[in-house]
C-alpha cells in the first residue's frame, strides 16, 4: 500500500453550536478540533475520530500532531479526549512521534487549567498556548 493512502477517509465535520468542528489530514499527520462539545450522541461523533487516530497510528510511521481549540466539553466528550490522549501515549511509548497543542483564549484561563489536567498522564510534548488556532 502507498505510504500516504488513508485507511479511512479524512474527517471534515463542520461544527455546530453543540459539536466541535473536526478536520483530519492523513497526508499531513494532523488532526484538529475547534469549539464546544456537548453532542447528543458523543460516542457516534468521537468513535470516528478515535477510529481515525487508531488507524493512522497503526498504518503510518510518520508523526501525528493534534491542534485543539476546544472550549466547553461535557463529560462524555472529556472521556473521549482522554481515550484519544491514551492512544497517543501508547504510541509514544512505542517510540512514535506524537504531539498536542491546545490553543485557548487568554481571556479564559480556566481552559488552560483544564487542558493541564488532561496533560497530567501524557509524557509526549503537550503545549498549552494562549492563542487562536489557525482554522
Amino acid at each position, binding site marked *: 500500500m502507498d505510504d500516504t493512502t488513508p485507511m479511512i477517509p479524512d474527517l471534515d465535520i463542520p461544527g455546530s453550536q453543540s459539536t466541535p468542528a473536526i478536520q483530519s489530514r492523513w497526508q499531513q499527520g494532523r488532526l484538529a478540533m475547534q469549539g464546544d462539545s456537548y453532542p447528543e450522541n458523543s460516542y457516534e461523533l468521537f468513535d470516528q475520530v478515535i477510529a481515525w487516530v487508531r488507524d493512522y497510528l497503526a498504518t503510518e510511521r510518520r508523526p501525528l500532531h493534534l491542534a485543539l481549540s476546544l472550549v466547553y466539553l461535557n*463529560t462524555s466528550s472529556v472521556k473521549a479526549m*482522554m481515550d484519544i490522549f491514551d492512544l497517543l501515549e501508547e504510541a509514544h511509548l512505542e517510540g512514535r512521534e506524537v504531539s498536542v497543542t491546545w490553543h485557548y483564549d487568554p481571556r479564559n484561563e*480556566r*481552559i488552560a*487549567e*483544564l487542558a493541564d*489536567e*488532561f496533560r*497530567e498522564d501524557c509524557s509526549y510534548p503537550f503545549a498549552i498556548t494562549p492563542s487562536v488556532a489557525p482554522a
Partner: protein
Amino acid sequence: MTEHEDAALLRRVEALLADPDHAGHPLHEALAELLARHRSQRHQLERLVSISDRYQQLAMEARQVTQKRYERSLRRQQKLSRISDGYQAMMRERNKALHRASTLDPLTQLANRRLIDERLRQFEVADRPYTLALLDIDHFKRINDRHGHDVGDALLVAIAETLREALRDYDLCGRWGGEEFLLLFAETGLDEAWGIVERLRESVADVGVSDGNRRLSVTLSAGLCERFPGESPAETLQRADQALLRAKRDGRNRSLAQPSP
C-alpha cells in the same frame, strides 16, 4: 524427620541393599520394594507441592493484575470527574458573567431596566414598602451638544459612581434612561429617603468632569414617592415621574415628593 535425616536413612538402606552379603536375605526383596514405593510417593508429593505453588503464584499474579487494572480505572474515573467538574464550574462562571452582563448597564455598571423591573416585581409580590426616587440630570442634552458624547458619558459614569457610593447595600440604584437614574430605598419611608436624596444632590453638585481647561458640573432634579400598600410598580413609577416633572417645571435643581413630605 528432617530432609537431611531422611536422605541419610535412604542412603543407609541403599547401601544395605547393595551389599552382596545381604543378597537373598528374606527381608531384601520386601525392603527394596518398600524403598521404591517410598521414592515414588515422595516424587508424587513433590509434584503436588510444585503444582500447588504454581497455582498460588498464578492466582497471586492475577490478583495483582486485577488490582492494578482496578486502580488504573479508578484513577481514570477520578480524573474524568475532576475535569468534568472543572468544565461545569466554568459554565457556572460563564452563566454568572452573562447574568451580570444582562442586568447591568454597560456604561455605568448600574442596574439596568431589566434588573430594576425584576426588583420592583419582587417587592410587589412580597408587598414590601419602599420609596422610589427618579433623578434626572438638568440640561444634560446641552452638555452632549456642546461638549460631545464622550464628555456626557464621562459625566454619567462619575455621577453613577457618586450614587453608588452614597447608597446602602440594600438600596438599588439603576440607570432608568439616558440621563435618568432610579433609586429604590427598601423599607424606607419618604422622609428618610428625602434626606438621602438631598444629600446625594449636594454630592453630585460637587462632581465634575473636565473638558479641556473647563470643568463642567451639573445639578439634578428628583421626584420621590412612597409605595402605597397594594400599589403596582407601574403606578408607583408614574407618581415618581409626575413628581420629577413638577420638579423640572418648578425650575430644576430640586426635589419634589408626591405627596409632599
